[in-house]
């Protein structure tokens, strides 16, 4: 087993990987950018090395600087987390050439599966179901129009190099196609430096269900069931659960076997995720494969009772898998909420700043994976995921009740987070019934899920009493602690803000 591992990431996932290492007796090495000197992952690690300024392209994406930190620390392996370099075959290859272990899949599998069109072709060739559409990039508008006509509207235009909802356009009819084609290409060029697009049949209210796979370097490959990831806001996952309320044992087995076949045809090992769309008739279609640990891996861990990060490390160290498919026993249900520094009352505007008070929920069945602490200032430079709240229950309804309890306990003051939003979701009748699809959240928001509750007279009385009490003790006018973020919250509620992904 490795004696020392470098974690080429930041935030909650860096801390989560370090926890696994510490439990395995492995020393941990953090890397950090200038603005991350006080970040939790630096404090948590046994060693820490600066790798450049705040801008990711000058620090967390700099392969040379990370390998330099590997050399200085004497680490024997690198865990990439998710995001940044996690799916970059050049990084995996550079590690290999430097004689250190990349904790992840083989380079060739990353390359094959990293291209949406190449992986699609391979999956089609193996006779596995994919969403109907083009199996290569479409170079001209004429090609796009022809394929769209073939598969029939509505269709989805997608950036080949894409991800995170960028360069995505839904087209309902032929008349909309040309303008959608132009904007999708422009967005793809801006976001990824590559204007290539391809086209897929658009499924009505599809569900996003993914299968966790795990394989060793000795040819063993198993799956650990599915995760339901249909709860997305603007194509980005916000809440995930295991098992899916849609999937029964038979469907689970068939999807699992398909996922394992996808892994095998790429010569895959380590942890990976095969994403599917599932239509209303429970047909499932290969979407893409993520060749890394997912943000939402904890829900699988809690239900399967298997620590995926430790398994990743063991697999990378050459150990054989410790479970056969028939040994895997799923128990109960788990749900994850992604706690973002965003203001749900204000169109999910990002909300960096000082965390003045932080109290994470505790008690039975509650797991908190966090990269932040009270007194820390959330920087503006990175994405806004602060922490993940994950709960387990003996069934879905206990998990939901527990999630509601935990969300009620969760206190973050100083910045706005998505916690109040999740409090509404867990009360939504359709969510409770498991009737969710990828547009559920956007629909629920449009329908006013976040509308103000009318407070009871009692609650308002308490607010008045507290305000008066505070004024009597601290003075009427002089603020004891000015809080500009409140300004923004109160001022901006009227929908005067809009946001979109940063052009790189």
């Amino acid at each position, binding site marked *: 087993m490795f004696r020392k591992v470098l974690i080429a990431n930041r935030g909650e996932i860096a801390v989560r990987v370090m926890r696994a290492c510490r439990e395995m007796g492995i020393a941990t090495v953090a890397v950090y950018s200038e603005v991350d000197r006080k970040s939790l992952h630096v404090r948590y690690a046994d060693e820490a090395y600066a790798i450049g300024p705040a801008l990711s392209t000058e620090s967390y994406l700099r392969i040379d600087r990370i390998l330099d930190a590997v050399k200085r620390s004497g680490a024997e392996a690198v865990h990439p987390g998710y995001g940044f370099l996690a799916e970059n075959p050049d990084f995996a290859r550079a590690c290999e050439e430097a004689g250190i272990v990349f904790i992840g899949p083989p380079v060739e599998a990353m390359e094959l599966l990293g291209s949406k069109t190449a992986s699609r072709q391979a999956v089609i060739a193996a006779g596995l179901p994919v969403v109907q559409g083009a199996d290569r990039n479409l170079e001209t508008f004429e090609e796009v129009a022809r394929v769209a006509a073939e598969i029939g509207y509505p269709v989805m235009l997608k950036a080949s190099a894409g991800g995170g909802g960028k360069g995505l356009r839904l087209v309902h009819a032929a008349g909309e196609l040309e303008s959608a084609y132009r904007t999708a290409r422009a967005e793809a060029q801006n976001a990824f430096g590559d204007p290539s697009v391809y086209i897929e049949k658009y499924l009505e209210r599809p569900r996003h269900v993914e299968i966790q796979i795990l394989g060793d370097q000795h040819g063993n490959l198993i799956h650990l069931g599915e995760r339901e990831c249909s709860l997305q806001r603007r194509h980005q996952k916000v809440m995930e659960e295991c098992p899916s309320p849609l999937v029964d044992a038979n469907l689970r087995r068939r999807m699992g076997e398909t996922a394992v076949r996808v892994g095998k045809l790429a010569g895959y090992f380590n942890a990976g995720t095969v994403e599917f769309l599932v239509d209303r008739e429970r047909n499932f279609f290969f979407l893409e494969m993520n060749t890394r640990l997912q943000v939402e891996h904890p829900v699988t861990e809690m239900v399967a009772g298997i620590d995926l990060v430790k398994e990743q490390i063991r697999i990378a160290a050459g150990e054989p898998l410790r479970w056969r498919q028939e040994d895997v026993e799923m128990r109960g249900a788990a749900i994850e909420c992604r706690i973002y*520094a965003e203001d749900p009352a*204000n169109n999910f*505007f*990002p*909300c*960096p*700043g000082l965390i003045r*008070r932080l109290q994470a929920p505790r008690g039975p069945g509650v797991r908190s994976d966090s990269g932040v602490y009270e007194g820390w200032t959330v920087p*503006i*430079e*990175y*994405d*806004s995921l602060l922490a993940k709240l994950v709960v387990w229950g003996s069934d879905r309804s206990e998990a939901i009740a527990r999630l509601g309890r935990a969300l*009620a306990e969760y*206190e973050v*003051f100083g910045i706005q987070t998505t916690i*109040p939003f999740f*409090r509404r979701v867990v009360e939504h009748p359709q969510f409770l019934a498991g009737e969710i699809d990828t547009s559920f959240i956007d629909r629920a928001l449009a329908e006013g899920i976040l509308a*103000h509750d009318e*407070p009871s007279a*009692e*609650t*308002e009385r*308490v*607010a*008045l*009493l*507290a*305000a*008066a*009490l*505070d*004024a*009597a*003790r*601290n003075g*009427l*006018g002089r*603020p*004891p*602690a*000015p*809080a*500009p*973020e*409140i*300004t*923004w*919250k*109160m*001022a901006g509620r*009227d929908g*005067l*803000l*809009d*946001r*979109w*992904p*940063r*052009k790189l």
Partner: protein
Amino acid sequence: MKLTLTVRRGSEIRKHHLELTLPSDAAATGGIARYTLGAERGEMDWAEVAPGVYSILVNGRSYEAQVVTSSPTGTPGEASRVVTVGTLDFQVSVHDPRRRRGAASLAAADGPQEIHAPMPGKIARILVSRHQEVVAGAGLLVIEAMKMQNELRAPRAGRVEEIYVEEGKGVEAGTRLVRLA
């Protein structure tokens, strides 16, 4: 202590008169306070459990209230409190009725209005120029933060009187950005 309180939730504004009698020990972090709220008399058992966080018992019911003081945009100098009770937020202004400071402070401003940065970030783009007429909802400028670009829009129609920032510059939350007349 007689107070006038104005409470805002969403677009609704309500005004209350409240008399509060605290124990004389100013350093106490808890105790019994009597109050008269409109026609209702009552007692609350309060305890400060963390700075600005109060545990409040009224008629046996247990509440937790967090009080944060702030100056709402557009009315600098006028302190106001945001009170969170459980999961609900209230914006409350507390006035001494003898000083006659108005409950009008919460009403919308009609005159020139300063737009402040709602968050720290970088000015990615300025979408208007000085003296330009804008309609309500028109984009004014774009602030970049947390891998997202965030467009700030005009709260009402008007003329851009002043632009205080430049593209590419960093701003703090609360920095003046634009003056709208």
